[in-house]
């Protein structure tokens, strides 16, 4: 259906081709969360790999910060329709974390879990080979609490609710299970380029 009188505001072609369908460009960094921002003291923070691993692994904040980090520059798209280009993060790649555990061959899916009880599910195959990372700096600053600090998962090729704020660990599973938003009408996968916003998309 053509919207009468709507011409739209196109961006330059090189920007337009980086915007997934239905998305619009922002230059600020909107904050969205379902509840209050948790504030876990760093001396009580840990990051854990558990579930289908030979033996679970856990890092303290100090240990986590000593892991090899990388700079990632990625575009991010939120299901609420905004896309932000060229965000820069300092982060530990999930590949680096996985070197510390032996995954059970039946592990196919990951549930990321966070302070405050938030969870989100992602296929394991979409977490490896540089596709996902745990970030503690945004730009040149420590990641602010409202943006998920001290550390958040970033899975840039999926809608941003998959990039769990305040992430505290990954649980490896053999079957896909819904996390928080996935139980409330949002898509199990969440690929912005296929516009997988809601259940059934």
């Amino acid at each position, binding site marked *: *259906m*053509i*919207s*009468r*009188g*709507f*011409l*739209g*505001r*196109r961006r330059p072609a090189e920007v337009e081709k980086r915007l997934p*369908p*239905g*998305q*619009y460009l*922002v*230059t*600020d960094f*909107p*904050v*969205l*969360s*379902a*509840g*209050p*921002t*948790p504030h876990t003291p760093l001396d009580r923070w840990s990051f854990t790999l558990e579930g289908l691993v030979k033996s679970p692994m856990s890092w303290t904040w100090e240990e986590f910060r000593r892991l090899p980090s990388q700079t990632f520059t990625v575009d991010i798209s939120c299901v*609420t*329709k*905004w896309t932000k280009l060229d965000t820069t993060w300092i982060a530990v790649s999930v590949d680096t974390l996985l070197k510390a555990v032996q995954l059970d061959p039946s592990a196919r899916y990951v549930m990321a879990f966070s302070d*405050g*009880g938030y969870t989100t599910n992602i296929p394991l195959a979409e977490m490896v080979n540089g596709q996902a990372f745990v970030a503690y700096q945004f730009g040149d600053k420590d990641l602010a609490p*409202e943006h998920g600090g001290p550390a958040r998962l970033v899975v840039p090729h999926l809608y941003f609710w998959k990039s769990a704020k305040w992430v505290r660990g990954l649980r490896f599973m053999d079957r896909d299970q819904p996390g*928080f*938003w996935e*139980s*409330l*009408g949002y898509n199990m996968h969440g690929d912005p380029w296929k516009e997988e*916003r*809601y*259940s*059934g*998309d």
Partner: protein
Amino acid sequence: MQPPQLEWQVAKVTAIRPETPQTKSFTLALPRWMAHQPGQHYDVRLTAPDGYRTERSYSVASEPERAGEIDLTVERIADGEVSSYLHDVLMTGDQLEVRGPVGGYFVWDIALGGPLMLIGGGSGVVPLMAMLRHRAARRSTIPARLLYSSRTQDDVIYKSELEAMARSDRELGIAYTFTRQAPSGWIGYHRRIDSAMLEEVMRPLGADIRTYVCGPTLLVEAVASTLVRMGLPAERIRTERFGPTGN
């Protein structure tokens, strides 16, 4: 089992009502209407003649008891691609493509119970209004309070309806605060929402309350953190960000 897809439908604009200088309410008749939960939103999709498309989400302002149609209240955002179209171009009788209702967490209905504490800033009052209209339509006596922060009195959305609601309902209380200009002779709050204000407004509701906070990021972050410090369990505090993104 794959759940059914939420499909796009072509709504007809049956009424457009200015609420404040910056907000308008749009009544949409839906061919495939279904009852929403108060607090849910609809997606709106605009398509240009060359196929260019963009989408936005807007909270439903109306109560689900109004079958066949919904109201969306939209704030005009400076330079907003969709809000300026809705405000300046869309007319009664036009068609508008929408899909919904969407969102399953920032929702309340009388079955969830109360007491209910609603805290809104600016156009963040819109989903809270759906909750209050639903509560009124069902003649619920669940105790409820709305604490509503606006810049000035002219920015108060649904002013006369809120006042009528509060007058006719002993279990509903509405408190306003103005962050810029207060009306002359105003003896109410004239500052940003703080813990003293929250305590005063919430006290009559007791401890076991459900709170919904919607507004600009700074307000939502400040209010939600204050509620946690006041001892409210985090799972009783539901938040939604609303309004222009602003740097």
